[in-house]
């Protein structure tokens, strides 16, 4: 017996998991790994921003904290990659708790909260660029040493399956939250804080839980990134690009919906790749496509692709039924 909402998750995961059987192109796996990493980071954003309505513009901070924690532990201290992963996830959760405590306790919402998260991410980027520990502007290189123990895989499909496993876990966790009391509270906070309070929802605690879970998920994405590319610098780790990717994917795919970030990430980057192959190497052409897609979605399907599908399905079924 599968609970509510899990069937689509399992199906989507299976489809992606089976691609190595039919596709053997390395560029496809490169593409899919990147999309999955972004989908994982975006799922973290979706939990806080989509379901909880606290729009962050600085999820790079969690991504970077995850990436740097994993790299520093491995390069400087020789810690095992998997233990580093756990530490990085914990660091992301802790960072979420701290930022959440500082901003939510002060009652920051909406664009003010977004600005504070952006400021934190930028602050960390500047610090990482200057500090010895993070390798300064040169960044950190992980030693190439493929093997399960090091969480490095020379086979791209294997790494894709690892990333997929992470995304699957994040989807299941999100679905579990959506089905739970905590999820209902989170949505209530998004919709109307005062009404939520009146119904006994401890708004601050709910937000803090959400932001630390969110930070943990996005930090895990940062770890995957560094395990795949074996290199990190401040511009990648704390750069604005990942903050934007993390919020664009759920917005396009369907914010607040469990599969939104994954669908959004695939759509955006899929379109980006297609344009690149048509337009050749015009620099920034994929970003222009992102912009057009975003405008179209906001104008015509404000609840994203999944929202649009659901609306059409509702209309169809009500017509068919009546």
């Amino acid at each position, binding site marked *: 017996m599968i609970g509510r909402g899990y069937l689509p998750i399992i199906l989507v995961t299976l489809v992606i998991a089976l691609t190595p059987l039919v596709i053997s192109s390395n560029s496809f796996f490169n593409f899919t790994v990147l999309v999955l990493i972004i989908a994982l980071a975006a799922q973290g954003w979706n939990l806080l921003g989509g379901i909880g309505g606290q729009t962050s513009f600085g999820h790079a901070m969690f991504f970077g904290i995850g990436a740097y924690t994993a790299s520093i532990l491995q390069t400087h201290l020789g810690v095992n990659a998997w233990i580093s992963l756990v530490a990085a996830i914990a660091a992301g959760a802790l960072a979420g708790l701290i930022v959440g405590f500082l901003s939510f306790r002060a009652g920051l919402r909406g664009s003010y909260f977004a600005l504070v998260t952006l400021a934190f991410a930028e602050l960390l980027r500047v610090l990482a660029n200057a500090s010895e520990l993070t390798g300064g502007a040169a960044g950190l290189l992980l030693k190439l040493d493929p093997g399960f123990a090091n969480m490095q895989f020379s086979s791209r499909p294997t790494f894709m399956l690892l990333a997929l496993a992470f995304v699957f876990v994040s989807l299941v966790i999100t679905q579990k939250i959506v089905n739970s009391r905590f999820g209902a509270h989170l949505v209530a906070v998004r919709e109307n804080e005062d009404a939520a309070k*009146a119904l006994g929802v401890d708004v601050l605690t709910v937000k803090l839980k959400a932001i630390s879970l969110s930070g943990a998920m996005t930090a895990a994405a940062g770890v995957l990134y560094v395990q795949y590319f074996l290199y990190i610098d401040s511009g990648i780790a704390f750069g604005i690009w990942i903050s934007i990717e993390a919020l664009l994917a759920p917005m396009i795919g369907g914010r607040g919906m469990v599969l939104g970030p994954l669908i959004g990430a695939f759509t955006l980057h899929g379109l980006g790749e297609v344009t690149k192959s048509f337009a050749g190497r015009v620099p920034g052409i994929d970003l222009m496509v992102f912009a057009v897609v975003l405008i179209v979605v906001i104008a015509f399907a404000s609840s994203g692709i999944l929202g649009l599908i659901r609306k059409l399905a509702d209309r169809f079924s009500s017509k068919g039924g009546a």
Partner: protein
Amino acid sequence: MLQVRNATMRFGGLVAVNNASLDVKEGSITGLIGPNGAGKTTLFAVIAGFLKPTEGAISLYGKDITAEQPHKRAVSGIARTFQIVQPFAGLNVHENITVGAYLRHARPSDAVEKAREVAHQVGLEKDLEKSAASLTVAGRKRLELARALATEPKILLLDEVLAGLNPSEIRDIIPVIRSIRDSGVTILMIEHVMQAVMNLCEHVYVLAQGKMIAEGTPAAVCNDPAVIEAYLGKGSAERIARQSAENTGGPNA
């Protein structure tokens, strides 16, 4: 069961509630009336914990709750509705009520079931799948009521749940309020619709310019000269009494 002792709420130089006290007896329907801007809603916000009173104390069953956060007060058994309805607009009616039901039911299936029960009690059972945003004014008022009720409160604070309803809608909802009281929930209501106040309340407090100026049975309060003056202006009680004496030869005709 609920006591407000000498509550004062100041916003800068404005004293919205001035040294007001009230007592709500368990199992009663108590009314709080007063002209517009008297401070009724502010007093409700103080009772529900949304505002911290400048002075004074609130206690529930003798326990001081003045320092408790709103969500803690909900746990203690105080539920409120909002004068300006505050539905979770993106959710449907059932989901809206379920948020309230989660307060005492951690398991989703229990909460969903409880929400259905409450929807039935307030007459929203046909609208469960409707989006909250698509409800009529009367529907939204019922939704406010249902959500608060789903928290299984001991005392329910109703802030003008009848405002904006037409006479037939008011007639429909009055028995609902009475049945809530009969199910064991104490009610404190702010209301302008006098038909409902006379009909439902056993005891009425009158707030004017932040001060409690009268209390008693609805009939007694309505004939209180201080109350008439608060609503209609200084000297009006006397004038009305004189006029009705001239017109009919008796003040009560």
